[in-house]
């Protein structure tokens, strides 16, 4: 049995099932991160003093550059499929995966530096919210990498069977990836600069 509306748009919603699904999922993600950002604001406005300069701004800026670059490579991976350039698509998707991996390596060094100095989540309110927000964001990066690995590996077979459906899957992955990058665009100034 074929699942309907994987490529063509549903007449009632005007969207393919996958696109409606990914936007509903992203809406729930906005609520999750929105709740945590609200928590941060409440904790910060209620604090008598708030630490500054605890995090490495150069490392945070480097990670910002990595994620903005990865959003460019992700959208290029999708655009290459639209132009039926399979080789370039693979290259761009692999580049996105690699940039995400470098982001996580940087995050590992940042975390281990804090933990080596005894600055874990229980050290202060700031570090508690820092580890919670960036840890959850890091888990989303890992999730995106798992999906990309699938689309680079066994999931790539779909391109030969149904290229339009595969292109849609890459677009939905791209929407998720842009959301994850967008969260970081807010996290970086809030945690590292303000």
């Amino acid at each position, binding site marked *: 049995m074929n699942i309907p509306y994987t490529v063509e748009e549903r007449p009632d919603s005007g969207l393919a099932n996958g696109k409606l699904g990914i936007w509903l999922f992203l809406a729930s993600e906005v609520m999750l991160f929105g709740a945590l950002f609200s928590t941060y604001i409440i904790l910060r406005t209620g604090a008598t003093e708030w630490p500054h300069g605890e995090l490495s701004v150069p490392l945070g800026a480097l990670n910002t550059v990595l994620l903005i670059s990865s959003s460019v490579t992700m959208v290029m991976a*999708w655009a290459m499929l639209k132009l039926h350039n399979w080789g370039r698509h693979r290259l761009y998707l692999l580049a996105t995966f690699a940039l995400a991996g470098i982001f996580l390596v940087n995050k590992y060094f940042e975390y281990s530096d804090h933990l080596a100095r005894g600055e874990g989540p229980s050290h202060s309110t700031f570090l508690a919210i820092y580890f919670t927000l960036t840890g959850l964001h890091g888990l989303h990066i890992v999730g995106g990498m798992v999906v990309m690995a699938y689309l680079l590996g066994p999931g790539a077979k779909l391109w030969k069977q149904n290229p339009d459906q595969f292109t849609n899957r890459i677009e939905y992955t*791209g929407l998720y990836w*842009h959301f994850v990058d967008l969260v970081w*665009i807010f996290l970086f100034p809030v945690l590292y*600069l303000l």
Partner: protein
Amino acid sequence: MSLRAFHLLFIALSVVLTAFFAAWAAGQYQRAHEMSYALTGVASVASGIGLAVYGAAFQRKTKKLS
């Protein structure tokens, strides 16, 4: 919203971030007078201009993709 539109929104917000980062670096430079902050500010402004140019080119070149 398509990936193309979301990407353009993301690039626009990234340009706003580079402007904010440049303003932050300028504030730090005024306070500490360290050259690294001045360089950070200049690099951030340059990145913002680069992103804006990229965004305009992306919008123009991908008009037929949806």
